[in-house]
Each structure stands twice: as structure tokens, then as C-alpha cells.
């Protein structure tokens, strides 16, 4: 993925700082670099789901490591976005088990409906559709990942409803939702 030069407003607020400190407390004092992956997740979630170079520098500063140590990690792992993406990223699993249950056709349908190609974002900045590799929901195919959650056993009607819910602002992306 190419590096974006778009500007990002950086806001590490008190709540995020508390969460980062909690994550840092999970590792020995001289091994704080270990917290890098979880911290990047939290920071990305709080910043429109992408990490600009400036934001990565900020993370390096918080963890007391060199910026390059953050860049090399961000560019390795697929879940970190290096450029702005849509508010709702539909990540369709397209590996074998999902593909044989119609994931490719469903992704095509979604792209056509939103008027984008795979990997593109809609003009209003709301939706991005991407194909990703196995998400570990093979028995519940076809499926997609949206924020922290999986949407499984999909069909065209369910995708339509999901898009409508997103447009109506009814979808929680990163809120913790544990149902007992």
C-alpha cells in the first residue's frame, strides 16, 4: 500500500491515554515495545481507522522507540491502514471455504451496488470494499468483517440491509458488545 500524504488530526485524549497505559502495564518495564501492536490498534480505531506518518511518529514517541520500528510494523501487518479509507470497511473473506459458498459473487454484488471496484472507497467516503484472506469463519460463509465484528451467513438481502444500517448510522464499529 502506498504511503498517503493526507493530513490527519491527531488527538490522543485522556481516555485513549488511559487505555494505552493499561496495555503498557501488560509488559515488563524494559519491554514496552511489545505493546506496539495492541497500541496501534487502539490508536487507529480512534483516528478514522488509518495511521498517518505523523501519527506513527506519535506512537513511537509514546512507546519510546524509533519511528522506523513503528513504520516497519505498520507496513507488515494488513490490519493497519496507511491511507484514509471509508468509514465502513467491508472486508470480504475470499479464501477457498468462503469462495466456494459464493463470497466472490457477493463481493462483486456489493461493489456494483456501491459503484466501486475492489479496494476503492465510495465518493462520500462512507464505504470501502476489500477482499481479504481467511478470517476464520469458514463454516459460516460467506462473511465479512466490519470494524471489530463479523457478519456471517450473508446473502444479498443481508448485505443490502447492512448497507442501509450503515447509512442510517446504526452500526457500531469498535464498541465492545458482549452479550451474556
Amino acid at each position: 500500500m502506498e504511503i498517503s500524504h493526507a493530513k490527519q488530526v491527531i488527538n490522543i485524549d485522556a481516555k485513549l491515554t488511559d487505555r494505552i497505559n493499561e496495555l503498557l502495564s501488560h509488559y515488563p518495564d524494559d519491554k514496552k515495545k511489545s505493546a506496539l501492536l495492541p497500541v496501534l490498534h487502539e490508536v487507529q480505531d480512534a483516528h478514522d481507522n488509518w495511521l498517518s506518518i505523523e501519527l506513527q511518529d506519535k506512537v513511537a514517541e509514546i512507546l519510546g522507540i524509533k519511528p522506523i520500528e513503528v513504520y516497519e510494523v505498520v507496513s507488515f501487518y494488513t490490519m493497519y491502514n496507511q491511507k484514509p479509507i471509508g468509514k465502513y470497511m467491508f472486508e470480504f473473506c475470499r479464501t477457498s471455504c468462503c469462495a466456494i459458498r459464493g463470497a466472490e459473487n457477493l463481493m462483486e454484488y456489493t461493489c456494483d451496488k456501491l459503484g466501486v471496484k475492489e479496494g476503492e472507497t465510495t465518493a462520500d467516503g462512507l464505504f470501502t470494499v476489500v477482499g481479504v484472506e481467511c478470517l476464520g469463519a469458514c463454516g459460516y460463509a460467506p462473511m465479512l468483517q466490519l470494524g471489530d465484528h463479523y457478519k456471517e451467513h450473508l446473502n444479498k438481502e443481508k448485505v443490502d440491509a447492512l448497507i442501509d444500517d450503515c447509512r442510517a448510522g446504526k452500526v457500531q464499529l469498535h464498541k465492545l458488545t458482549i452479550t451474556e
Partner: protein
Amino acid sequence: MATKILLEHINVPGIKTYEVYRQQGGYRSVEKALKAMTPDEVVEEVKTSGLRGRGGAGFPTGMKWSFIDKKSGKPRHLVCNADESEPGTFKDRFLMEYIPHLLIEGMITSSYALGCNLSYIYIRGEYMWVFHILEKAIKEAYAAGWLGKNIMGTGWDLDLHVHCGAGAYICGEETALIESLEGKRGNPRIKPPFPAVSGLWANPTVVNNVESISAVPWIVNNTGAEYAKIGVGRSTGTKLFSASGHCKNPGVYEIDMGMTVDEFMNSDEYLGGMMDDRPLKGLIPGGSSVPILPSHLIFKTAAGEDRLMTYESLADGGFATGSSLGSGGFIVYNDTACIVRNTWNFSRFYHHESCGQCSPCREGTGWMEKVLHRIENGHGREEDIDLLWDIQRKIEGNTICPLGDAAAWPVAAAIRHFRDEFEYHVRFPEKIKNRDHFVNEPFEKVKHLVARPVVI
């Protein structure tokens, strides 16, 4: 009637919470181990049980534990591998999502056996809601006194945390997982030194799969000898299989090792046969990395014996006519599945997931993907099939970690068992180009094409 060890309480309402889990007899193994057993006795029980690593390699867990370096005096760590990313496998997620305290109990008992004071669960980043479930469960365990300082007044301390990855299949390889846990790129390390000597932060480390660790509480409670009574031969205990693809009832099932593949596939209690009653074409019994079996080798081995759900029976016949139990990702294909497209799909996966350290894997997986892509899209050449065979053979065994082998085996098996389908693609490109993605009409067999046997 199959024994239920891991999923015994899965249907109890509220089993996700500490209170209900404890009411069902949870955390008994911690009490028993800490009060009545020495760490070495716990290791011995696990050795006796014959429990083998459930992540895919099937290495005996007790033996792995006994390798941990206790002489150096360095801090020791147990890391649970919950980076489940093998296509076809979703059993660990099921365990962690629905009965998270089982894994935590197993982590505590196992950490005690290994003498660890700091342990981690490494979960893949995509399972973010499961990460939150585990975080909550760990907090409950701390509050109940099962974690923290001076557990049960024994003077033994344990801290357990959950750590998330960020979308890299390679981090399921234990040394890559350790690198990732250190906040680095997931590049596998050269072994030796093995993690048991120099793992996380250069300390002695054991990395175990979720399912292996979740079996430990039962083994400690009921003794290893009881566990070893379940199953056949060296395949002891129960195993979770996650079934997907064209079967009637996809999902996660716990079975006794030694059930026949026929029963698992066709009985209503399990997969219930084929979806829409279409014919069975192929089966991958242990996740995408293991060889695909054609229909005539699924229920019977080449020797004509019943094929059983065990490490040995699924591997019977080697790679020529057998496969492997792997991680238990059971993928069923019916006659509408195109083997060439499926193999291309897997190659794309491995190309995408290769970390790029070793040239044979980095270049070879991409090359195979390209060749398969052109065959699938009607631009293939006859010699491409032999070229694929050649590439996969040169990747296998020539890389630091097993991802190279895992990328090579599916291609080899597809050509070995379904060469006629590759030849059909090459010779009738027009028919191939005009198909739907994963064809809803069955692959058209051509009578005059006879597959050439492949010499290994």
C-alpha cells in the same frame, strides 16, 4: 456416544461468565494442581495423556513442556497460540468465544507446570471481539484470586495477558508469533535455538495451541491415563474439527479420535452428508496446507481399510494417497468446485501471507499464483502443469519455516489427484473463460483425457 471434554459445558447458559463456569466445576484443576501436585507431576500427567499439539504439527505436548530450559534460571513464559488463520480452521475461536474461562484455567494450570510467572495469549487481530471477551474473563479471574500474587496462598505468582496480532497468517508459526509479541514484524526465526531455550525476550518459552491448553484441565482432573483411554493408538483424546464447504451442517464438532471419516461425514449428528445431496469430489481434512484427497481415497485408504479421524489414518499412504490431520479444518468440496480455481485461491493466500524472508517462498508462491491464474483464466500452456510441479518441489523444505511446505503441498496434491482437470483447462480455454467463478454447473469431464500418473 462421544466423550465431551472441551465442549462439555458449552450449552450451559451463561458459561461465558466466571460465576457459572465456576459452578460447573471450573478452576478445579488449578486447585488440584497447586494443592496436591508438584509442577513436574502435572507435566508427567500431560505426558501420560499422550496429548498432541492441536495446532497442526501434532507434536506431543508433554514432551514439548519437558524441553523447557529450567537450568538457566531465566524467567519462563507460556504463550498460547490463538492466531488461528489456517483456511478451514475456526475451532479455537469457538472455544474462546463461548467458554473463555476454560482456556484461562488451562493457562494457569499449564503455567504452574512450567514454572512461569508471566504468560500471554496471542490472538489474531481480526478476532477483536474475542480479544475483549478474553480481557473481561481475565479480569474476572484476577478478581477471584486465580491470577496475581500469591495464588491460593502458595506463594506462586502469575500474570496472564491477552495480546493481539494484526492480520498475518505467518504469526501462527511459533517463532514469528514470538517476534510479533515483541512488537516486531512476524519474521520466523532460524531454529535452533528453539523457543524452549530462547523464546520471548530470549527467555525459555513454550508456545501451545488453544485447544491443547484447553485439554489440560480435564487431564489434571481426571488423570492422563484416563485421557489416553480415549482414541486409537498414538492419537489419544478428543479433537475439535471445524467443518466447512459443501457439507450439510458446517460447524465445530468434538469427536473421539478414531471415528471413521464416513461416520463424521454422513451421520446426522455431525456433518449430515453433502449439501443439496450433490456428489462428493474432494476433501481437505486438516486445513488448507494439507493435501486434498479425491473422493475414492476419503472413506478408504489406498490399502482398502476404513479411514479414521486420527493422525495416523489420515496420513496413511503418505502424501501419495493420504493427507494429514493438521489443524482439523475439514473442508468438503462437491462436484461444482473447480480444483484449479481452488488451488489458485490457496496459492494467492500463501503468496499474500509469505513474510518474504526466504526467496523460494517469497518468489515461488507468487510464481505459482501467476501460473495458476493463467491456467484458470484460459491462458495456460501444457507445460505449465509440469512447471507448477517443479516450482512446488523447489519450495518444499527450502525455507526457514513451514509456510513454504504449506504452500507447496496443496499444489502438489491437486496436480497429483486432479491432473485431468488442469489439462482440461489448458486444452479448452474457451469453456473455462465463460464460466461463473465457482461454477454452479459441475466441471465437465472429458473422457478422452487420461491423467498421467505423477512420479514423486
